[in-house]
């Protein structure tokens, strides 16, 4: 097996309250894995630990890419992104007052080679690189059918398109591993179906490994190859959607939480 992400004994507590306790999980290359659990189970905290927004109390996170192993647990968010981990946020964090194009273009910043002087005087490779950035951004936006709205402000997009734009922005950083935090939240069934197809498609197109937090069970059961279940910060089950669906502990954790959709 070709592991991309290997998390061992990951723990984090806030002021004595354990948010995540000794979580082990791994992702193989090209896998699409779901992370589910009731509200407050520690799913988003896991993402924040993986992306360096919080520093873990204990445990290790290692990323394998191009035959190299990188440990992520002491790194800053921007370094982790540059190592190839992209993410979206549960409560959409777009650059609201920037255009759709700028949202994506800014995410391509690390490919920019021209320095401060070229930026100040608009000389050197500035014009060529800027043109390339726009072309690449437009290509990416086309995938999400947002190219026609490139110059609109992100905050003026309808909700579903904002979710799509956030994924596009994450892809613009050229990740190997993509973390999606409730991508279908707030979407209607038709939009969710559309999103499902998009996720499948970008996975192949960009050769991605995806970890996905989701409340919408239909989406998880449909596209995830494996599922991890968190409850009270602890991993209570792991396996294929079929196995998970029938696991009594999972059913119990979810009872009264969300009805199966």
């Amino acid at each position, binding site marked *: 097996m070709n592991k991309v992400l290997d998390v061992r004994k990951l723990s984090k507590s806030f002021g004595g309250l354990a948010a995540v306790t000794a979580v082990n999980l791994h992702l193989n290359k090209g896998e699409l894995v779901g992370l589910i659990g009731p509200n407050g189970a520690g799913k988003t905290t896991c993402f924040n630990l993986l992306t360096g927004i919080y520093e873990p109390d204990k445990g290790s996170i290692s990323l394998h890419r191009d035959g190299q192993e990188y440990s992520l647990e002491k790194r800053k968010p*921007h370094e982790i992104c540059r190592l190839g981990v992209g993410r979206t946020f549960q409560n959409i964090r777009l*650059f609201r007052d*920037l255009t759709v194009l700028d949202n994506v273009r*800014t*995410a391509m*910043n690390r490919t920019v080679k021209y320095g*401060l002087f070229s930026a*100040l005087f608009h000389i050197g490779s500035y014009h060529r690189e800027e*043109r390339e950035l726009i072309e690449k951004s437009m290509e990416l936006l086309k995938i999400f059918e947002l190219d026609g709205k490139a110059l609109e402000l992100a905050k003026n997009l309808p909700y579903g398109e904002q979710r799509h734009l956030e994924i596009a922005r994450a892809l613009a*950083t050229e990740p190997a591993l993509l973390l999606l935090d409730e991508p279908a939240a707030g979407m209607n069934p038709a939009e969710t179906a559309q999103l499902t197809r998009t996720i499948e498609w970008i996975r192949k197109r960009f050769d991605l490994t995806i970890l996905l937090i989701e409340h919408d069970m239909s989406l998880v059961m449909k596209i995830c190859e494996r599922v991890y279940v968190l409850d009270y910060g602890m991993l209570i089950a792991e396996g294929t959607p079929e196995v998970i669906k029938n696991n009594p502990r999972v059913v119990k954790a979810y009872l009264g939480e969300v009805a199966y959709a």
Partner: protein
Amino acid sequence: MMNRLFEKGRMKYIFALLVFAIGQLLVVTGYLNDYLFSTLTTLCINIILAVSLNLITGFTGQFSLGHAGFMSIGGYVCALISMRIPTVPGFLLGVLTGALAAAFVGFIVGLPTLRLKGDYLAIATLGMAEIIRIIFLNLKITNGAAGLNGIPQFVDWMWLSLFTFSSIILISNFIRSAHGRACVSIREDEIAAESIGIHATKYKVTAFVIGAFFAGIAGGLYASYFYFLRPTLFGFSRSIDILVIVVLGGIGSLSGSVIAAILLALISTYLQAFPELRMVFYAVALVVIMIVRPQGLMGSKELSLDLLKGFGRKRQRGGS
């Protein structure tokens, strides 16, 4: 479509040349007397200060109340150098060294303080400017509270317009580059910016250093034109003056800063005889803007020079 997305922007140079030519004409024909020229100098200095503060506060979202501190460094360094080398090259050397000194201090101060957020950063930069002022108040070489007198005067319309336009153009160039966009993304959402690989601290410091550099240039011009410097010129109220321009014009709009600077120059010319009233007016303006139109006159929009192209623009067919 691509053409619309990718702007070349040669208009600004033509515009700058035009303004310079008109100004030069007025100077040569004597329409611009000493009094008007001193108002114009103050205006240009204020524009440089406001545009550079806007880069820090408006575009990068880092609230700084210490811009006067950087200005004073530029001023004193330029004064000390040009007093020893009283020639045009000496003056230019003074302005550039002063700006570099201000940028250096900006770097030293920015590195630790820019980790602070919002109002904490504001108060830290305010403290920094006060410390700089107190140091100038106590140094022998800057002649303490009495300040420096008889700084050689080299600022004429050519230098003034050259420095003013280069400041505006360079800062606007920076904003329309990948590095500038990184700064703006930090203002929009720092956590999201970091999640897409933007090194927030690096870009905050970069914006701070560039802003300090141009504030230093403004200080150098000030020293050379008004030929005397005192630490009291660079107190808290100077920083507030600059902030008023930025806020009035629109946080995140360079043309807004320029327009606001012109507007306030007109107002303070009329209120010349009542300096207290001018400050009261500033105060009321601040409060009213914040309550009624917190985004300022221009919001984050720019007055595009393309408007000037007007009809010529029609010939460009929109393609995709």
